[in-house]
């Protein structure tokens, strides 16, 4: 297969902080060095890799650094990575919305981006007018749009509203219309950024089908950025993992997802301070102050009890307080919860230290995150949560203890089997 996109040493530098103050002096300095002294741009040398969490010294940061990619025609490429890894910047550069700092990009044909569908829709204009407007913005000629008008209208399912101003459309209809136009653009390269998050289920199916058609039947290239590992797994052949603006992994989509999920939990956090006694939130009757994983570790073996220690403080006395927890998998989907019947009482302005232990959890090998809430009430009175900590800690189940039955098969767990190994018994009778 011939190459559709070739990216060589692509880098993009951003300036941090408030743009506008001091830029004139930098501009003048840059102009002086480059045009008068004929030297390199003085601000290109400094700059650090793009790691959101650590504080850097430089005012400039590399959002993308030395990206090299060669994408074959007809390939469906998934680009995954944490927030701020540079995925969207890369797509923005590819769709020519912004310019990179160094490097070159070569591509063949027309690139259409679905960065956000419905771009340029004017609320006062009718659906039909907007199809023409939007198509023209995407680079289609008038004749081309007229030729495809029926198909677009059909795909969007908005025929009845075609001559109604778009401001009267529901948000779902707007997205449908926008995607319908974009899907009929017939670009050689299609760039998609998380659009599938919107729209109803039926339409999502249609959209995914269209994306598959586009890549399979017509030999077009698709670049797909998403946090939805399921969609990436279903759609993509090749996968790239971006990390801090650099390519961390490149391979099949399945392997890339595995690599991404494996490195996702690498920020080991076992202790968190939510608030101190000085800045206790006023509106919360009972609030979490600190939280920690006991044993100070993030990886556990199969069936190993996991303990969490909290400090909570009450503003008012509560007679029947309880702690609840929800565990989610690496993709963020909840897989189970604890709804507590063990109550404890807490007095006004009292500070309590609590241990919460997860027993016999049967979680299979994988990455999980856990959320907690402190509240009151039971199934009769209804539940009230005073304070909620969403995705408080990430932890892994990755080691096994030979003394625990079934532990070995847990070590070879396949993601496709789910997240829980059910307690079981096999008998010969």
């Amino acid at each position, binding site marked *: 297969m*011939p190459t559709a996109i*070739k990216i060589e040493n692509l880098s993009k530098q*951003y*300036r941090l902080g408030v*743009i*506008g103050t001091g*830029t*004139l002096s930098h*501009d003048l300095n840059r102009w002086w060095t480059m045009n008068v002294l004929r030297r390199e741009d003085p601000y290109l040398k400094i700059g650090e890799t793009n790691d959101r969490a650590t504080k850097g010294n430089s005012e400039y940061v590399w959002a993308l650094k030395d990206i090299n990619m060669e994408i074959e025609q007809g390939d469906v490429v998934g680009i995954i990575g944490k927030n701020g890894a540079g995925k969207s910047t890369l797509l*923005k*550069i590819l*769709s*020519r*919305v*912004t*310019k*990179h*700092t*160094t*490097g*070159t*990009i*070569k*591509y*063949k*044909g027309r*690139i259409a*981006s679905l*960065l*956000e569908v419905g*771009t*340029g829709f*004017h609320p*006062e*204009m009718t659906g039909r*007018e907007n199809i*023409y*407007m939007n198509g*023209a*913005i*995407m*680079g*289609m*000629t*008038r004749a081309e749009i007229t030729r495809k008008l029926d198909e677009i209208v059909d795909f969007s399912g908005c025929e009845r509203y075609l001559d109604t*101003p778009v401001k009267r459309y529901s948000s779902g209809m707007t997205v449908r219309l926008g995607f319908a136009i974009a899907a009929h653009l017939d670009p050689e390269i299609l760039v998609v950024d998380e659009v599938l998050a919107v729209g109803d289920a039926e339409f999502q199916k249609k959209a995914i089908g269209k994306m598959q058609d586009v890549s399979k039947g017509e030999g077009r290239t698709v670049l797909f950025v998403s946090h939805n590992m399921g969609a990436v797994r279903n759609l993509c052949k090749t996968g790239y993992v971006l990390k801090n603006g650099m390519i961390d992994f490149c391979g099949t989509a399945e392997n890339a997802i595995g690599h991404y999920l494996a490195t996702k939990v690498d920020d080991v956090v076992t202790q968190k301070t939510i608030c101190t006694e000085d800045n206790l939130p006023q509106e919360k009757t009972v609030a979490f102050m600190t939280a920690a994983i006991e044993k100070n570790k993030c990886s556990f073996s199969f069936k190993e009890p996991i303990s969490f220690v909290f400090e909570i403080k009450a503003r008012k006395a509560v007679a029947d307080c309880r702690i609840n927890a929800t565990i989610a998998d690496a993709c963020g989907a909840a897989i189970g919860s604890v709804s507590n019947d063990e109550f404890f009482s807490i007095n006004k302005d009292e500070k309590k230290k609590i241990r919460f232990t997860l027993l016999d959890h049967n979680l299979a090998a994988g990455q999980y995150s856990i959320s907690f809430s402190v509240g009151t009430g039971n199934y009769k009175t209804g539940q009230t949560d005073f304070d909620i900590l969403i995705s408080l800690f990430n932890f892994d189940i990755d080691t096994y203890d030979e003394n625990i039955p079934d532990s070995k098969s847990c070590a070879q767990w396949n993601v496709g089997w789910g997240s829980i190994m059910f307690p079981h018994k096999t008998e010969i009778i």
Partner: protein
Amino acid sequence: MYGNKNKAEVFVRIITFAYKLVKMENDLTYTIIKPQSSLLDLNLRELWQYRDLIRMYVKRDIVTFYKQTILGPLWFVLQPVLTTVMFMFVFGNLAGISTDGIPGVVFYFSGIIIWNYFADCLNRNSRTFTDNQNVFGKVYFPRLVVPISVTISNLVRLAIQFALFVVIYIYFFATGADIEPNIYLLFLPLLVLMTAGISLGFGIIFSSLTTKYRDLTFLLQFGVQLWMYATPIIYPLNSIPADKQWLIQLNPMTSVIETFKYGALGTGVFSWGWLGYSFALMTLLILVGIMIFNKIEKSFMDTV
């Protein structure tokens, strides 16, 4: 040696080969995006490819302007009419500024419609990037499409206002006012073109600079208002002492408006030299403007 059939076959082969060659050539045309391009890398061909978009933008501007209004396109003419009435009262009656023997309505109206066209284009073009950052941030198309279509859509407004001017003009001409149209009226298309060009040039220069330095937005806002007083709209150029006239003439809009008044009304100052100066300045503004605009459009998303 070769029969006709063979010849035909060879011919077909050559054609197929040539076709393949051309096709291969096409297959190999990659678009290359480089980080820096020279100032003169204008790519007007691409702009031409997007001519349908210019048309759509113009249509959108005109259609959406009067949607959900009762008076509709009438708003296009109401604005200059009210301004003219105001000017007649303030500058004609109260201040008693000369109108060179021309009825006040015709004198003010002729200047106002051209000036309005100029000011509207300039104001909107200077906001090109800030107004459209939403669209610009998502899709690529030659950004020059927007200021060009603004300039064209305002032209429609000017045409409607001009039609009203013709009606007023004919009325006063028929009732024997001191109006002497002459051959210089033929300059009109050129004058409109120059107004469009100057506003486009200034507009895109300002829009490029405001992406980084917002101060210019404030400067332009009252700058345009002051600029009107530096243009002979409420007063004839003649009323300025002859040795100071050059100062007003430095303003490129002066000769445009004076030439129009000279051709349509028969009063005012016509000078080939100053008209040429305005034309040259317009060309320069557009060239410099497109160059700066072209450079800014590639990176403005990071600074806006």
